[in-house]
């Protein structure tokens, strides 16, 4: 072996070791339940899609994984269209496709790639969208997610979340890691790792920081960490336990559960931990705050009525209203982004499941069927809820649509995964 190929082998081996730990915690996402109706769509492989990561395949996988599309086989149409004007609608209606996507990728002289696509309605025989991007090759995967977002929005009327990121905790043996991955589970990046438990990650709504709880000081302490610099600061380390951080919609403040005054209570503070102001004064447990999207109220868990239930605090008036009355254990509230209700964890007959309550009707719909479901987090389009579950004693993540029909399972090889947090939509 020559010296330079020996060196290359060393470098390759080291890179494998470097990435192996994170790769073990990569999420594999499978659909285990589809939507009530699915839109049949054909996605013709883009002309010139010769790059290592196939852009067309990522678009197809995103749409299929949403549970709202049935991706129809696009093979066998000759010549393969890459432009709207080349599409013969009969080719696609005969395959049962209501929509077809065509496109092409062209390298530019400066090394970037032009990616263009068109989305057509085969039934109405018209173009629904046509977009082109010029991006660096490293951005091709992100561009595929943006294309899937456009297609999803045009055909469902709702914003797509394929370009968002998901944070979660992976535990492997004694090691805990907070990871951030693309919404399809790819490219997990390690944010922080520790030999002590990490929990309760929450994204700032502007997408720049994550707050979390760490037990590295042998007590729960709240940290805020910047995603761009990796730098972090302690925002709450008072006497006793500090936990359950929740961001205000403008990313400037946090509500945190502190026990410094004798008992778990809610406190409001600036995002750097200054300006601490007490919000609740019950003799019991108040915790798990979550802001409404309009910033005017907070849902939280309290046992002030004798059992853990969900309450709403209106910030202006200070009024507190009980929200849940059914059952003896209702916790972990998360507001829906459109303000129409909230998801939460409900215990019934020893099982813990995710449920959704409508503010106006107070009706509750149980969305999941596991036995130890917990930690729900709502996608920023309000259509999917990711949560933690378990199977065979192993921690997995799962997702369910807000109508209960679409079901996904997210697993990591050789790791327990828990505490998911869906990142925001960024412009």
């Amino acid at each position, binding site marked *: 072996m020559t010296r330079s190929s020996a060196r290359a082998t060393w470098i390759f081996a080291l890179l494998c070791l470097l990435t192996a730990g994170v790769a073990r915690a990569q999420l594999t996402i499978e659909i285990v339940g589809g939507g009530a109706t699915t839109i049949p769509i054909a996605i013709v492989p883009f002309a010139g899609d010769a790059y290592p990561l196939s852009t067309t395949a990522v678009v197809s996988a995103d749409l299929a994984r949403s549970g709202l599309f049935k991706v129809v086989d696009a093979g066998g149409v000759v010549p393969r269209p890459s432009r709207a004007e080349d599409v013969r609608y009969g080719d696609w209606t005969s395959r049962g496709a209501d929509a077809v996507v065509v496109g092409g990728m062209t390298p530019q002289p400066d090394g970037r790639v032009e990616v263009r696509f068109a989305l057509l309605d085969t039934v109405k025989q018209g173009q629904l969208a046509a977009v082109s991007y010029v991006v660096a090759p490293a951005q091709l995967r992100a561009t595929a997610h943006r294309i899937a977002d456009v297609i999803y929005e045009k055909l469902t009327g709702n914003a797509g979340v394929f370009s968002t990121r998901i944070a979660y905790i992976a535990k492997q043996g004694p090691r805990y890691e907070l990871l951030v991955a693309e919404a399809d589970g790819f490219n997990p990046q390690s944010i922080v790792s520790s030999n002590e438990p990490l929990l309760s990650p929450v994204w700032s709504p502007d997408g720049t920081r994550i707050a979390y709880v760490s037990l590295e000081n042998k007590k729960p302490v709240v940290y805020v960490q910047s995603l761009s610099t990796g730098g972090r600061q302690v925002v709450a380390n008072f006497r006793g336990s500090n936990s359950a951080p929740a961001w205000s919609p403008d990313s400037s403040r946090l509500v945190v559960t502190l*026990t410094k005054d004798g008992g778990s209570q809610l406190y409001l503070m600036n995002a750097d931990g200054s300006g601490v102001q007490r919000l609740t004064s019950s003799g019991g447990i108040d915790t798990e705050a979550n802001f409404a999207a309009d910033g005017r109220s907070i849902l939280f868990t309290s046992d002030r009525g004798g059992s853990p239930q969900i309450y709403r605090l209106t910030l202006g008036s200070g009024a507190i209203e009980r929200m849940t009355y059914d059952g003896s254990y209702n916790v972990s509230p998360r507001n829906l982004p459109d303000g129409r209700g909230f998801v939460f964890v409900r215990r019934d007959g020893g099982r813990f499941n995710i449920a959704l309550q409508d503010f106006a009707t107070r009706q509750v719909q149980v969305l999941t069927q596991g036995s130890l479901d917990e930690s729900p987090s709502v996608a920023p389009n309000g259509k999917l809820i990711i949560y933690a579950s378990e199977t065979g004693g192993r921690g997995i993540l799962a997702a369910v649509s807000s109508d209960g029909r679409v079901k996904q399972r997210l697993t990591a090889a050789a790791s327990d995964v828990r505490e998911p947090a869906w990142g925001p939509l960024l412009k």
Partner: protein
Amino acid sequence: MQQTVHKLLMSALFASLLAACSTTPTPDTGAPVEDRNVGAGTSGAATSGTTTGNVAGTATGSESNRLRDPNSILSKRSVYFEFDSYAVRDDYKPLIDAHARYLQGDKNGRMTIQGNTDERGSREYNIALGQRRADAVKKMMMLLGATDSQIETVSFGKEKPRNPGHDEGSWTENRRDDFVYRGE
């Protein structure tokens, strides 16, 4: 020269590999003192030896002997709880009384009470429940002679179970306060 460069390159790559394994320093995780005796604490506190008066700082000499003497009730460090409850059971009162009197006798003695829960339910609600379990025992110790500044209470919620099992026996073992004296 090329050999040296090669060796420097390999050293640098190994160093960055080690650095990449963790972005935070991982502190030494001294596990809480384990008490395998699940169930009633022994009655009739029997402290062997004589106290030697005030001991500065952490427990030393015969004081630490008392804390670690398996014949002394002070070597027992765990109190167990019923499901969903932070009420202190009567059968643990002698144990709590013994530790409270120990702290009363050693003004420099410091203890942390770590509250724990079983694995069921919300992680954050369990942090709060574990904290209530720790606070319930602290309150009792203060009535029995310990001072507020001598006892810190923290919660691990369901994050650090002693027993990783998923059955009633495991859950019972995990619904627990542990007493850890400073310096242990």
